[in-house]
């Protein structure tokens, strides 16, 4: 299946497999992250934070193996200190040193990590930290604090950046303020990121790979598009959010101003403002925005009708193949019966609305 994102075929970045027992929760966590942004997704209390503490070396698991770029961090015999792991951490509560200015916080790792001093100006510029440098954490807003924390983690010269719900403590306005910085991190620095979250919008915007956790276990992991198009897994992300992500390339502009896109399922039209031809987009198609028809529909107001083939039916969610990509449609059990939907059925998917995510 197609891999959404820029890290197709990248070597295994992070390998995690460990067990740990707490009173009341037994963790059995195993996943692999190929690079890019890997979202560790699950409800509160499912063990996400424990998992990243084990990866960062802040918690010694009972048993298992954790390796980063082939370097063993933990395997029972080896247990590298947090200092030796080169994993930069951004915590939900920022954890800036309250007695130091933002600048001193940012320079804290430079004594121990070569090259950090050289990157200082670049990171300060990238995260627009200049005006904050002389201030102490007590006077910074939540969003500003997180930006400084991100800069400090980057200046520790990490091989992997771990972010534990960095936006969870912020209100919507602050989240919107930080999100573009995280996207820049992903796209400009190309640093592998492990991103812990229980927010679907964050995962959708940032992740290339998703690891689903529930009650101390990894239930599934894979490329974002694959998880989103899995009718069994999609409900874990929330019923309203079920829906696939497909790749599209801008082909050109119609005389009436519509943008013509090429997708694995054929051409689609979008009322988006000017996008240059050749631009690659990710289209988010929610399951409840897709209508299925067995015969080619006539006289529709909807512009995008794609020929698809049913690949799976799980409850009211139908997985559809368009070329080598997958999407979901939400239908009632009665319609499944009436249309005799089963794997292999040929259908027409009427797409009512599409949202475009930057790629």
């Amino acid at each position: 299946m197609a891999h959404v994102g820029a890290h197709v075929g990248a070597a295994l970045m992070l390998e995690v497999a460990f067990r740990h027992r707490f009173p009341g929760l037994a963790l059995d966590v195993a996943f692999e992250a190929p690079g890019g942004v890997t979202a560790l997704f699950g409800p509160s209390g499912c063990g996400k934070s424990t998992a990243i503490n084990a990866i960062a070396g802040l918690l010694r698991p009972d048993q298992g193996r954790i390796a980063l770029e082939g370097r063993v961090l933990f395997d029972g015999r080896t247990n590298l200190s947090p200092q030796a792991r080169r994993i930069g951490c951004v915590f939900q509560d920022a954890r800036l040193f309250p007695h130091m200015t933002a600048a001193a916080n940012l320079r804290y790792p430079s004594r121990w990590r070569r090259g950090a001093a050289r990157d200082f100006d670049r990171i300060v510029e990238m995260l627009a930290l200049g005006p904050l440098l002389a201030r102490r954490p007590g006077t910074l807003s939540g969003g500003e604090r997180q930006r400084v924390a991100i800069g400090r983690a980057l200046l520790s010269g990490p091989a992997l950046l771990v972010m534990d719900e960095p936006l969870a403590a912020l209100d919507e306005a602050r989240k919107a303020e930080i999100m573009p910085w995280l996207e820049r991190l992903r796209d400009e620095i190309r640093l592998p990121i492990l991103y812990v979250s229980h927010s679907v919008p964050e995962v959708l915007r940032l992740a290339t790979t998703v690891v689903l956790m529930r009650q101390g276990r990894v239930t599934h992991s894979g490329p974002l598009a694959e998880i989103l198009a899995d009718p069994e897994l999609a409900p874990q992300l929330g019923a309203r959010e079920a829906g696939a992500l497909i790749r599209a390339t801008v082909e050109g502009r119609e005389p009436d101003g519509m943008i013509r896109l090429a997708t694995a399922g054929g051409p689609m039209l979008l009322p988006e403002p000017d996008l240059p031809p050749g631009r690659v987009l990710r289209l988010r198609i929610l399951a409840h925005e897709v209508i299925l028809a067995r015969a080619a529909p006539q006289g529709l107001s909807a512009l995008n009708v794609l020929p698809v083939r049913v690949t799976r039916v799980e409850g009211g969610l139908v997985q559809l193949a368009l070329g080598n990509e997958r999407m979901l449609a939400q239908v009632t059990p009665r319609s499944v019966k009436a249309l005799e939907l089963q794997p292999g059925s040929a259908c027409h998917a009427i797409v009512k609305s599409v949202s475009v995510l930057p790629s």
Partner: protein
Amino acid sequence: MIPTDWLGPQEWQAVRLSLRVAGVATLASLPFAVAIAWLLARRRFPGHGLVSGLVHLPLILPPVVTGYLLLITFGTQGPVGSLLKPLGIIFAFRWTGAALACGIMGFPLMVRAIRLGFEAVDPKLEQAAATLGAPRAWIFLTVTLPLILPAILAGATLGFAKAMGEFGATITFVSNIPGQTQTLPSAIYALLQVPSGDAAALRLVLVSVVIAMAAVLVSEWLAWRMSARMSGRR
């Protein structure tokens, strides 16, 4: 200019000696107090309760008992005193002995205050420092210590005040020799033993009150400055 002639030379001597004894006692015991407070706050080990009990002993024992124990341990015939004597370190009937007694009597107060400081520091900050590559000793010096500075200050103030007022253990261990071991409280005590000493005793009481108040005010001011700095108000 403060007139200096309202205290007699022997009284001035007692004031100077008390300040020196309390200052030395506080500064010399502070590093040990920080180390013991860290041990008790951050480490679980067999004998944890025993160490805690030993530290608190001077607080619970009658000061005379502490003084006597010091005398038989650190006296020139005592097991420790006889070992130190060839090295030129003599505590018995010297001002250094007064400082030792005052330091030991103030020690539990210092440890208690500093331990509370260690317990209030969020270990997550130290973890964050570790992920940034800093070695543990560096984290202690640059993150933990600065964050507990107000507690250290409070402990030092308490220790200093206790040392200024210490009487029982000091007089038992090093006696009451003017110019050698006669601190403020011993001088007041000695003055109260003679019929004409009331006025001089009262003057020394006044000096005691002023020094104690000054110590508390300076410590409060420093603590205020630190917390203001930390919350970013200055």
